[in-house]
């Protein structure tokens, strides 16, 4: 069997050993370091060994090297990697998360900020598609170690464009959801035909018998998906001693780092849910109930329609490209004219005069202190908060 590079122990250390930043905090006795983290470090042999190295007295001064000693050239493979990374960093990728992008995740960040999970090594995800949650994408984990490719790993190639060396293969056996605010830049952008090839191989993996190939760790095979795409993959997994089995176990565990931000984002109320909750609570204090309007008899309602007492009808619309901006259709349910205002910190940002049963559409930023105000003909005002 070929020796695969890097070794599994090195991959495990990259993925799960304490990060340099965490080691520094431990060595410096950072008082903000949680007790549980400190205890875990003290129990970890690798961390203890690194601490001992860090605390050892400096070795006796060595003779200063001669200024004339030439610095050796880096090996060719390292030069190529550096050049590959530089090309990827110079490339212009869309800042909007797009299917086909390979995004980098350096740190677990949830809706309320960093989760303080120690992540020593960046992870990468190929985005396949958006989900119902605007900040969560679906895709597959991407890794650098092409030696460990199986028949369910697609090898990325030169023709895939500028690409950071972190993006070597797509792990189609390791599907993940990623909370997009956790991402830190784009490592590559696969063109549509290559993304189609990735999807075709993923579909084959789920629905077709495995390819009739001998398991050979470290060997890459050019083959066709059932839809005809040319792809480069590894061979099927072999017996229990096949090192790619442990490789998969390591990367499945690594994928757990992506799950907590996604879970937190999923349980967080959406912008619409927060809006309705505020309107409902505020309405109850003034005896003006927020009720869900009955769906139209004909056709299917595209969005839920609410009524604030018998004054206003409200329909909320999500804006997919925006995060804290929403559209609100407001209809005057009374026969008399009224005025609608969007107010923030006592400044009127928008005002619309609505004749009886007339409606208007508002584009509102859910910034702190934003309120919706209703003024009748006499100027008497009711206010509802739209944001915290």
């Amino acid at each position: 069997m070929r020796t695969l590079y890097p070794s599994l122990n090195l991959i495990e250390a990259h993925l799960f050993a304490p990060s340099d930043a965490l080691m520094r905090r431990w060595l410096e006795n950072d008082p903000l370091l949680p007790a549980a983290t400190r205890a875990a470090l003290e129990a970890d042999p690798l961390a203890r060994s690194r601490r001992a190295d860090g605390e050892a007295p400096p070795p006796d001064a060595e003779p200063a090297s001669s200024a004339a000693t030439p610095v050796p050239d880096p090996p060719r493979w390292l030069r190529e990697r550096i050049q590959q990374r530089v090309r990827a960093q110079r490339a212009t990728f869309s800042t909007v998360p797009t299917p086909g992008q390979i995004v980098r995740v350096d740190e677990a960040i949830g809706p309320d900020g960093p989760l303080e999970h120690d992540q020593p090594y960046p992870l990468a995800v190929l985005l396949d598609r958006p989900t119902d949650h605007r900040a969560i994408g679906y895709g597959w984990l991407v890794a650098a170690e092409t030696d460990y490719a199986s028949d369910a790993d697609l090898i990325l190639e030169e023709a895939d464009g500028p690409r950071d060396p972190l993006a070597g293969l797509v792990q189609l056996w390791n599907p993940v959801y990623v909370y997009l605010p956790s991402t830190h830049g784009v490592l590559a952008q696969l063109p549509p035909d290559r993304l189609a090839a990735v999807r075709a191989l993923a579909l084959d993996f789920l629905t077709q018998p495995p390819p009739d190939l001998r398991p050979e760790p470290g060997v890459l095979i050019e083959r066709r998906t059932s839809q005809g795409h040319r792809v480069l993959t590894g061979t099927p997994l072999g017996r229990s001693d096949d090192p790619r089995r442990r490789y998969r176990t390591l990367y499945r565990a690594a994928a757990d780092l992506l799950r907590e931000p996604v879970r937190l984002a999923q349980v967080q109320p959406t912008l619409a849910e927060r809006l309705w909750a505020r309107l409902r609570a505020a309405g109850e204090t003034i005896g003006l109930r927020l009720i869900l309007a009955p769906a139209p008899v004909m056709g299917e309602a595209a969005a839920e329609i609410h009524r604030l007492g018998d004054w206003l009808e409200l329909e909320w619309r999500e804006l997919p490209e925006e995060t804290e901006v929403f559209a609100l259709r407001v209809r005057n349910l009374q026969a008399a004219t009224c005025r609608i205002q969007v107010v923030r910190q006592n400044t009127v940002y928008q005002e619309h005069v609505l004749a009886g049963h007339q409606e208007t559409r508002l584009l509102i930023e859910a910034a702190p202190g934003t309120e919706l105000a209703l003024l009748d003909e006499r100027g008497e005002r009711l206010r509802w908060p739209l944001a915290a």
Partner: protein
Amino acid sequence: MFRNYLHDRLRDPWRQRRVETDDAPDEAAAEVSLFELLDDQGLTVGSIRQAADDFLAARPPWNELAGELWWIRPYLARHFCADKSEALSALARRLDIPSHHYKAQQLGITVVKGGFPTMDAFRATHLGRWIDRLGIDLSGDDAPAQVRIALQLLCQVALYGSVAAAS
């Protein structure tokens, strides 16, 4: 291929409502009657796809599945969408799924010989809970057909995602 057939059939089931000139009932008509069965329960293809998406994305109340989807998707695909069946043990070996039989039982796709001993035993599985939450009455006469179509839709979403599956 079966999955393409299924995909076409489920793309717009209402389009399948047509007057048959042949006296013999064909497969399309049978599928139409299946969708009518769902309709009777107040279910739509859209609502089932949404529920499938929630399940497969481990959204509440399915948070506990977040770390399990890597094996749930292939199990679903192999059972409900695959062109050729593959023994569970072979699939588990290929994907390196530890405790594969226990996992399959938890999911609700295999049991000890003789089938689920009680309806409650199936309801305790992930798929049983999902079917239950959909509102399908497992004790009803039409339950087997309704469950079959719901699981096929779940599988379709597992393969293509809810948006692609609906297009």
